[in-house]
């Protein structure tokens, strides 16, 4: 193999598994260390700079970072990354002083944002400090998009949402709430320099053809509409017996909300087996904990209506079969159909995009699925002035993805307004600093706690089920949070190897607790992977290959299960290994001047 090019920032970036997996690439280990140092304000700002909504995400994020966490590969459970984020938010001091301070000198450009969800708000945050005049339209009464209308208050208290939305709106954003945009043409006629569409995926799927749908309409609701109704206090109660159709997170929010509005026997009925349900495992757990029954392998057949009143639903029992490719089919078991009694039904089987307000003669192309054609890198549509992001761009995802899109769209809009090529994107901000403090001393805590993941405490069910606004999770207290921070392996502290210093004493290879390092004759990657002390079978992880050494061999390090414990560097007599902290901050339209607060000891 060729020597690894560690000059390419993507190499070390990939080693930081959590950060790499995070759509917005939040520098996770950096903020975890700040929390350990009780620097909650700084930890919050590291997050805010990157993901804009630390308090919200610390409670609601889909956490793609956690399954990616290195800890999973050397132990069982990932670091509670998401809940540590909340600790920063819960314990922070005055963060506003570190945010860009308006009023900003106008740059003479005007940008329109349609929709006030996380995608649009991120664009606003990134462009406002550059002097853009920003007009934001949303049909709701306040900003936040689905974070306000969909995510229930028992998971996300309104104060937390308002606080973080307002940090952005306070930057001088001109908002027009309660304003539904019904024509893109009219917006374009207002001579904006650019328009960003962040309208989400607002349409809930229905089961229009299922018998009884029309007759029972009064008792049947579309999940996301019903949740919005609850959030805006139009719906204050629900029948005692509720069926929720669907197995995703929306279904979980529907059933848990039902329990709080008077639902006593709440049943989630889903076509797939329990294990295959789309909902996150922790959402399912929380639902079960609230005495919600999850009935899997049941396909809805009809709504049963008697004398104009819904009495329940009929289901067919199925079982899942998987072919060699893992593709699933649901086959009827042959057992007789089941009637499940209910007073009301919530349909939570998915969302769709819908753009009835975009005229089709503006030069903005739609594809065969009626989705706008949007560039994956630049987020530009085929109408050069119009950009998309969040759920509106490629279908429903989550808040952190919307934020990531927002940052990239803001970069594009800025380049566009400056007449530059949108494909020549500025490089990310990176930094690589040695952590050496003495011969065997590091400025990071290199020891590794063997603790198992700590559990976040919850409020009593008896209390939370009575009040839909009462937050269920209490968050870590700072002592537990500290212990949880110690589980982090500091994957951003990189093992940096300098070949011409190595005297091939083997000390690093011998000491490495997880057998990551091998000195061997070079070979092509597949063979080299097999030749290591422990064959490198996780192909998603890279090999760090050195330049040729004096004996003609090369040093090969499998990044897979490196603990970043620094022992290789401690045992190296020549400092051929050094532990260096790598910081990677995604390209943004507005780079904060001091990109991230640092730990000072």
């Amino acid at each position, binding site marked *: 193999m060729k020597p690894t090019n560690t000059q390419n920032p993507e190499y070390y970036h990939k080693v930081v598994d959590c950060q790499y997996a995070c759509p917005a690439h939040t520098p996770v280990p950096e903020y975890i260390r700040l929390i350990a140092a009780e620097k909650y304000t700084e930890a919050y700002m590291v997050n805010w700079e990157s993901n804009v909504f630390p308090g919200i995400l610390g409670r609601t994020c889909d956490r793609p970072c956690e399954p990616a966490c290195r800890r999973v*590969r*050397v*132990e069982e459970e990932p670091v509670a990354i998401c809940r540590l984020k909340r600790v920063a938010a819960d314990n922070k001091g005055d963060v506003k002083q570190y945010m860009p301070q308006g009023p900003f000198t106008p740059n003479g450009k005007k940008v329109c944002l349609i929709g006030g969800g996380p995608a649009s708000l991120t664009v606003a945050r990134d462009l406002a400090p550059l002097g853009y005049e920003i007009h934001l339209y949303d049909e709701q009464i306040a900003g936040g998009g689905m974070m306000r209308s969909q995510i229930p208050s028992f998971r996300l208290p309104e104060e937390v949402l308002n606080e973080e939305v307002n940090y952005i709106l306070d930057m001088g954003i001109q908002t027009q709430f309660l304003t539904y945009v019904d024509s893109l043409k009219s917006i374009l006629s207002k001579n904006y320099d650019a328009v960003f569409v962040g309208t989400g995926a607002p349409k809930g799927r229905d089961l229009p053809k299922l018998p009884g749908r029309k007759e029972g309409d009064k008792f049947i609701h579309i999940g996301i509409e019903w949740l919005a109704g609850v959030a805006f206090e139009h719906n204050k109660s629900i029948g005692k017996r509720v069926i929720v159709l669907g197995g995703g997170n929306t279904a979980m929010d529907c059933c848990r909300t039902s329990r709080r509005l008077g639902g006593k026997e709440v049943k989630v009925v889903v076509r797939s087996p329990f294990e295959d349900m789309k909902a996150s495992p922790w959402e399912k757990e929380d639902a079960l904990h609230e005495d919600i029954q999850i009935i899997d392998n049941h396909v809805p057949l009809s709504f049963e209506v008697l004398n104009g009143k819904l009495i329940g639903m009929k289901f067919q029992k199925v079982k899942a079969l998987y072919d060699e490719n893992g593709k699933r089919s649901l086959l009827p078991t042959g057992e007789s159909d089941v009637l499940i009694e209910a007073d009301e039904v919530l349909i939570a089987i998915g969302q769709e995009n819908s753009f009835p307000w975009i005229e089709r003669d503006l030069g903005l192309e739609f594809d065969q699925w009626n989705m706008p054609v949007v560039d994956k890198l630049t987020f530009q549509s085929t109408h050069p002035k119009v950009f998309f992001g969040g759920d509106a761009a490629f279908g429903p995802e989550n808040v952190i993805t919307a934020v990531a899109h927002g940052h990239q769209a803001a970069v594009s809009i800025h380049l566009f307004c400056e007449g530059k090529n949108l494909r020549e994107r500025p490089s990310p901000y990176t930094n690589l600093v040695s952590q050496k403090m003495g*011969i*065997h*001393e590091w400025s990071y805590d*290199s*020891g*590794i706690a*063997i603790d198992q993941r700590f559990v976040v405490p919850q409020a009593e069910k008896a209390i939370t089920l009575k009040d839909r606004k009462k937050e269920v999770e209490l968050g870590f207290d700072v002592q537990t949070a500290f212990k949880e921070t110690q589980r982090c392996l500091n994957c951003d502290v990189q093992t940096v190897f300098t070949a011409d210093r190595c*005297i*091939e*004493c*083997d*000390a690093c*290879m*011998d*000491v490495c*607790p*997880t*057998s*990551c390092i091998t000195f061997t004759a070079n070979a092509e990657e597949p063979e080299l992977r097999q030749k290591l002390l*422990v*064959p490198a*079978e996780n192909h998603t992880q890279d090999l760090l290959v050195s330049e040729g050494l*004096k*004996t003609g061999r090369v040093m090969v390090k499998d990044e897979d*299960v490196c*603990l970043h*414990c*620094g*022992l290789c560097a*401690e*045992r*190296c*007599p*020549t400092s051929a290994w050094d532990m260096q902290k790598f910081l990677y901050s995604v390209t943004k339209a507005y780079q904060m001047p001091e990109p991230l607060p640092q730990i000072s000891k």
Partner: protein
Amino acid sequence: MSYLKPLFKHPRLPKNKLGYTLKEYEGSLSTLCAGCGHDSISAAIVQACYEMSVEPHKVAKISGIGCSSKTPTYFLGNSHGFNSVHGRMPSVATGASMANKDLLYFGVSGDGDSASIGMGQFVHVIRRNLNMVYIVMNNGCYGLTKGQDSATADQGSKSKAGSINPFQAIDLASMAIELGASFVAQSFSGDKQQLVPLIKAAMQHKGFAFLNVISPCVTFNNNPGSTKSYDYVREHIEATSTLDFVPEMPEIKASYESGQSTSLALHDGSLVQLNKLATDWDPENRISAVNALQQARAKQEILTGLLYVNSEWKDLHGVLNTYHMPLNRLDESDLCPGEENLLSINASYR
């Protein structure tokens, strides 16, 4: 500075016949200088014991004084150990072996420990052909006391402070052969490919197995002009052979060019396969082995590999024809002859 090794290990770390991974053969985190050759030798011992699936509780590590003699703390953490006085490891090992011949004995020593203060003991333990593996971690200096020249430092070798060693070096390998050691090998801490099979063969050898391992002291003797530095050793090393240790009678014979390959059978039927690189040398012939060593020395080469082996000679227990059971397992019923017998024994002396 880390004092503890993380408890984590590679999730796919292979296991040996006993179901143990390499980890079960490791010791605590070394406190030797980073890059010390001794640590590599420790790692080679760990590797050899793991590969041979030895039961850790059937091993005893005995050492004297020196950085080298500290290493038993850093390998085989689940085995017995005795850190004795300077140069006195052989007599402790002899005593231990006499008491319990069932254990595998690793004697770990340094060039100071063996070639200076412990020379008398070294000589006699060889003469007795004690069944043990005797490893000298040879760095040409007294590492622990800050690098004074030892008796194995080559004449003309330059110390870190710049002084030239005026004395001739004691060649421990030649001497061991001369004294009648039944297994003599030489190696380099930086060459595990050679060292690990040598240790494995030494463990299987019944009798005194001597390993003189050049092991650079990175702190006090790794300077230019030293003949025990990593660079110097790598440049002057001359392997007698490449070798493979074959624990049981092999089914497939490794194919070597004819005339070059020799198999040496050890007591228990295991084999050492040698692919000879040095000509005019027969590892089963003392004179030829000593010759090869002397010739290499004249050429300023460091001859490594298995130099000499004799599987015929009896070890100390064999010579003394000791009881078949280890002495420490004999209890009163085995040892007390009974009143009647005692009386007749006593009577026989009257």
